[in-house]
């Protein structure tokens, strides 16, 4: 399996070429004479004359036009080795660790149930550290809460400990800490790696460090098995120190895994004792979505030139609980304030979900949404650039679709509050 390119590669068949060149070769006729349908293009007629079947000559080209092969089959012979690009799926080599001697443990953030970019960096770092230790080690990822991640294997996870009971849902650092302490005593990992992020990695890592009495390296950005360099003093100095057992790693600390596939075999952990939590999660508080700055909003409903009913757009945003954004045209026309403009001359947004209504997707606008995970487009034009970028596009009038969407969300909200009342009762 050397040929794994997504492009067609011309495969020469030297034997076929030799036979085609040699008219006296007993197989010459079969190579030279097969046309499109595999039927012979030249046949000896009953009278001994050579008869050509013009319908069998040539082949249909990529644009649907018939092409006649003037090379007299030379190209056809080589064409036999041509592979179709569609069937090719790049399969990375599998990295297997049987009976690992040790485990390097990574605790990813799993924001929204998926590995973040920083999580993958940290997994890459874990592999670098594992290589530096004698024996064969595996990278064990400990993930809390429901997981939607499908690509643990290509991210570099050798073993996966998925703790998704109800007791790990929500904000429960004490319970998660208890599980990590259990992992510590079960595996005695040479390294504990956490992403140093506001998404919980830093919190959990610090808790574990305090519990097991390790002094962590925080904001570490260049780490090997002996020394690590970390940012200190609010990012103004670099501290070079020996690498501790527990690391809180900065973004882009190491390259992500991209050349191998890993097993991501599930592992089990013995029963974790239930902790009597001193912290009680009361759930997230409703914040006014428009009070959040556009750059850090999680869910944006953006309006472009395709919005004709602005009142409806504003009610839709408030019902969905989305922060409002706009294209430049909507701002220039005076429908939205300048601070709401998304794009090259506006704000670069980082939303997880970006719902673009009536925005064509000019390049200046696309630059602003480069970091968005899921883009949804509502547009009348199926050929516009926004539709090409979007994970889900609906082709139709924005007003109708927004109307339907609002009723759906309202239904969902009333159902939820009824359900909540029943729970409370």
């Amino acid at each position, binding site marked *: 399996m050397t040929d794994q390119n997504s492009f067609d590669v011309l495969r020469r068949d030297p034997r076929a070429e030799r036979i085609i060149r040699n008219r006296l070769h007993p197989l010459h006729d079969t190579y030279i004479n097969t046309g499109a349908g595999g039927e012979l293009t030249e046949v000896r007629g009953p009278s001994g004359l050579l008869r050509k079947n013009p319908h069998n000559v040539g082949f249909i080209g990529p644009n649907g036009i018939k092409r006649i092969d003037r090379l007299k089959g030379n190209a056809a012979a080589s064409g036999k080795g041509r592979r179709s690009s569609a069937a090719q799926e790049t399969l990375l080599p599998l990295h297997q660790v049987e009976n690992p001697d040790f485990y390097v443990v990574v605790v990813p953030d799993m924001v929204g149930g998926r590995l973040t970019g920083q999580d993958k960096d940290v997994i890459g770092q874990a592999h670098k550290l594992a290589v530096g230790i004698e024996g064969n080690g595996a990278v064990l990822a400990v993930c809390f809460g429901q997981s939607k991640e499908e690509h643990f294997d290509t991210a570099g996870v050798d073993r996966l400990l998925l703790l998704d009971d109800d007791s790990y849902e929500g904000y429960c650092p004490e319970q998660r800490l208890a599980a990590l302490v259990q992992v510590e005593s079960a595996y005695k990992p040479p390294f504990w790696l956490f992403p140093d992020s506001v998404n919980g990695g830093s919190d959990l890592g610090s808790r574990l460090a*305090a519990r097991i009495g390790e002094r962590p390296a925080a904001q570490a950005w260049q780490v090997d098995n002996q020394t690590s360099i970390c940012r200190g003093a609010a990012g103004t100095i670099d501290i070079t120190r020996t690498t501790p057992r527990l690391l809180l790693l900065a973004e882009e600390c190491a390259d992500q895994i991209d050349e191998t596939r890993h097993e991501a075999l599930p592992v089990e952990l013995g029963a974790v004792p239930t902790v009597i939590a001193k912290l009680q999660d009361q*759930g997230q508080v409703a914040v006014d979505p428009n009070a959040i700055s556009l750059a850090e909003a999680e869910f944006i409903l953006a309006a472009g030139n395709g919005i004709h009913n602005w009142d409806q757009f504003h009610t839709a945003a408030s019902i969905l609980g989305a922060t409002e954004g706009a294209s430049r045209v909507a701002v220039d026309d005076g429908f939205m304030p300048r601070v709401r403009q998304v794009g090259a001359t506006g704000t670069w947004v980082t939303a997880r979900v970006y719902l673009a209504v009536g925005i064509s997707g000019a390049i200046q606008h696309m630059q602003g949404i480069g970091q968005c995970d899921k883009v949804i487009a509502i547009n009348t034009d199926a050929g516009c650039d926004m539709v090409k970028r979007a994970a889900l596009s609906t082709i139709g009038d924005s007003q109708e679709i927004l109307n339907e969407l609002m009723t759906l969300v309202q239904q969902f909200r009333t159902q939820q509050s009824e359900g909540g009342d029943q729970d409370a009762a």
Partner: protein
Amino acid sequence: MQPKQSIAATGNNLKIVSLISVGKHPQSGRVRRADQDSRAVELGMKLLDSGNPTGGDSLVVLHAGDPKEPGLRGYAGMGLNSVQVLELDPAADAVAPLGEYLQQFAPDIVLTGVRAEGGESSGMVPYQLAEKLGWPIVPRVADIISVEAGVAEVLQALPRGQRRSLKIRLPFIASIDSAAQDARQSAYGPASRAMMDIEIVDSSTDQLRENWSEAPAKKRPKRLKVIKAKTAAERFKAATAKSQSEGGKVMQNESAAEQAQAIFDLLLEEGVLR
């Protein structure tokens, strides 16, 4: 009103300790009051004002280190009568003396910043204190809404401007996020008048840290986009093609209701509908 006062009379007076450190301006490097620590002091003062009307609550602003440090005056200028200082060697580890002090003083709420602006700035101090005292810790607090009957309701700052509400039993340690209310201005007169309550404590030097080397932060190299192409055609495509998320679903002929349903399902799956 009656029962509330009686609770206050039976010793529900809040004892708040706010830990402060010396800050450093990120651009000029000048010594100042640290941003998050001064927000913590501000929150402590707010709790005093809104708390027990009989005035039984108290706020102690505590520093472990050098009492002559000019940065401390910045906190005093917020209107404090005194700053409590545990005097110890600058190279010493502050956690042990702080832990002992807190154990004796037994406050209800300890406020700190998330990360110091100098030194290691790993943000471990509140965690180590919490572990030592066996108290719960709430990181990244934006506000303390109420303290009633030994339970505090706390707003925690989450990324992307979100807030989470938590209930927590006293005593606890809270690290204050930059999302908390801005600290009031610091005035020079009160700053120079405030008392420094100095207590000399013995401490052990930070052994581990002596072996570290520190240097001004280097600019980190940006990660380059490496193109792992095997053929010229692939390299050409990588250099010219627009990055697009492929495999997007396009719904063209469905009714508006079906399309809206699909969008709704996706929003629900992503968990952005609350």
